[in-house]
């Protein structure tokens, strides 16, 4: 059963340039979704709309069957979704442990250690950590929030190949082992290969790719087709 449902969502900047035109999508828990597309096509905008950072010009976004515009965007951000940004966006005057505690009352050390940080690193200033470590802290913060949906905007964009692979694994595990619905906006073909479902956003329309192991493959309409994982689930 889908936890997030996007229905006929449209969005334009300053009521002029339409970046999203009647986008439809359904997303389930336990799956990793990748959204591909050229720069400026509206990937991050779509992620912002799913995360309740902004309101769509038209259409609705549902969480667990409830229109998030009605239940409240702030409440949606607080209880249903967690963000992971390309620039990590950690609070620079807090330690990694304190950053994780921002969204959770649970002890932060277990989750940070699970993501590869030592106790010393967990108590260090976040700016003294490497980029990979900072992104792990950002992921830990998202996971600790216990939000069922994790929205990641280019999470591996600033990282080297090995670290990017590690982060991809963590996101995959978050979806498969922690039963999260992980939605990743990315340019990375490697990350997309690991996704259960790959969407391509082109000319304001969201399409599901035919083959998820080949992000450059020709897409087909989301409305008329199902992904491999969806077929696998039947």
């Amino acid at each position, binding site marked *: 059963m889908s936890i997030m449902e996007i229905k006929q969502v449209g969005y334009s900047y300053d009521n002029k340039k339409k970046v999203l035109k009647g986008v439809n999508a359904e997303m389930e828990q336990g799956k990793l979704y990748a959204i591909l597309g050229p720069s400026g096509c509206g990937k991050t905008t779509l992620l912002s709309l799913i995360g309740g950072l902004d309101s769509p010009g038209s259409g609705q976004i549902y969480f667990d069957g409830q229109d998030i515009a009605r239940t409240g965007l702030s*409440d949606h*951000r607080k209880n249903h979704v967690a963000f992971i940004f390309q620039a990590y966006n950690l609070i620079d005057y807090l330690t990694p442990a304190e950053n994780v505690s921002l969204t959770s009352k649970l002890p932060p050390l277990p989750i940070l250690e699970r993501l590869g940080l030592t106790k010393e690193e967990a108590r260090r200033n976040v700016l003294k950590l490497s980029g990979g470590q900072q992104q792990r802290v950002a992921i830990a913060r998202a996971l600790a929030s216990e939000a069922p949906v994790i929205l990641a905007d280019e999470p591996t964009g600033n990282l080297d190949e090995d670290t990017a692979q590690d982060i991809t694994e963590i996101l995959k595990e978050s979806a498969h082992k922690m039963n999260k619905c992980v939605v990743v906006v990315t340019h990375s073909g490697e990350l997309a290969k690991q996704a259960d479902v790959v969407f391509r956003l082109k000319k304001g329309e969201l399409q599901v790719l035919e083959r998820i192991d080949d992000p450059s493959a020709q897409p087909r309409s989301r409305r008329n087709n199902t992904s491999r994982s969806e077929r696998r689930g039947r």
Partner: protein
Amino acid sequence: MNLYKRAYLYSIRKKGKTLTLLAFLLVMATLMLTCLSIQSATETANANIKKALLGYFTINAKTLENGIPEDTVSQILDVDGLSGRYTLRSYTYAAYFDADGNGLTINTEGAAQVPEGYENAGRVVANSNSQEDSYFTDGGFEMVEGSPITTETGSQVLIHEKFAQRNGLSVGDTMLLGNVEDKDKTIPVTVAGIFTNTEEQDSIGMAPSYDLYDNIVFTDLSTASFLLYGTEGTTNVQYGDFYVNDPDELERIMTDVQELDGVDWESCTLTRYDNDYQNAKESLEGLQNIVFIAIAVVSVICFLVLALFLTLRLRGRIHETGVYLAMGISKGSVLLQYLLEVILVAAIALVISFGTSTAISHQIGSSLLSQVTSETYETVDLTGESEAVEEEPAEDLGLAEIEVALSAEDYALVWAFGMVLCVASTALAAYPIMKMKPKSILSQMS
């Protein structure tokens, strides 16, 4: 993590920013407290001057046939606003005789002339209390023997020690004072005391014999009334000085007095004496105005600079604001965190400012106040308008003891104002960020 902890952690970990804000707020609070404490001190000085430089008015009834009667004095004293302190005075001339009616010898040496009929006469000064007469307060007269004359004593005189020596008189002796124009109209008086002059008379060679110091006699008001008006049993006087509680009310009180019945006020002269107070007040009001303007300017500048400072500070925290909003932390909570950070630092600044402003206001305030009060002293010294009334010496104005100290009220006022300023400045600085959508904030930070 709640907003209180976030605010606390920001304040202790962003040391540079916190210290900058602390320094700014400390300067602001110190300036404000200094201005307020100086203002309080000037108010105290003003109140002290009111007490010290009592305003008064004088009734000159010299042209009235029978002077001011006792009843009128009683009515005047009932007028609202009078302090109850008053001095009655009369001046005349009398011929001096011994108990047997023989003329006493006066000093004529150094006299410009000895008018006919005044060969053994001198000036008679009557006062409610001889010690308060200007001859004693300003003219250098002092008692050498006996006791002063008051309203309690009747038919008594004080004579100069040279007059006493010249005529063989001593305390307790009796002499006669006679009307100069009607020498049969005499009144016996007892010598109650002997005085002398410590300063030389500066009108020697110009004054007639009856005005020489040696020939002056002080007596009680009823004796003078007999000599002037021929009254017996009642006392009429020529002059009355009536002191008021508040010099600012002098005008109103004088109007009330002029409305009293039974006196031909058209023939009386009422003169107000509050120049000392008005001049001193003017000096202090000048300082008060400066301090008031300083407080207003400091308040406005503090608000603007603090708002600008916080605007720049919050502009650097758009990133953080966006992250908090993305986490679902409400705008109100974020704003409250920023406000708490400022209030936390402001509270520390206000505590420290107690010490700094005490030290600074003591230095600056004392210097400013002493400058103003020295002007006041000069004003008082130079104003010689009240020739027969005791003047307050400058050192008794109560200004020398004024301390520019911080009062609890001023301190509480600055706390309240500081907190309002922090709330207003933070709200103003945060408004542009808070009205943005989370996505706009996040897109700005990226």
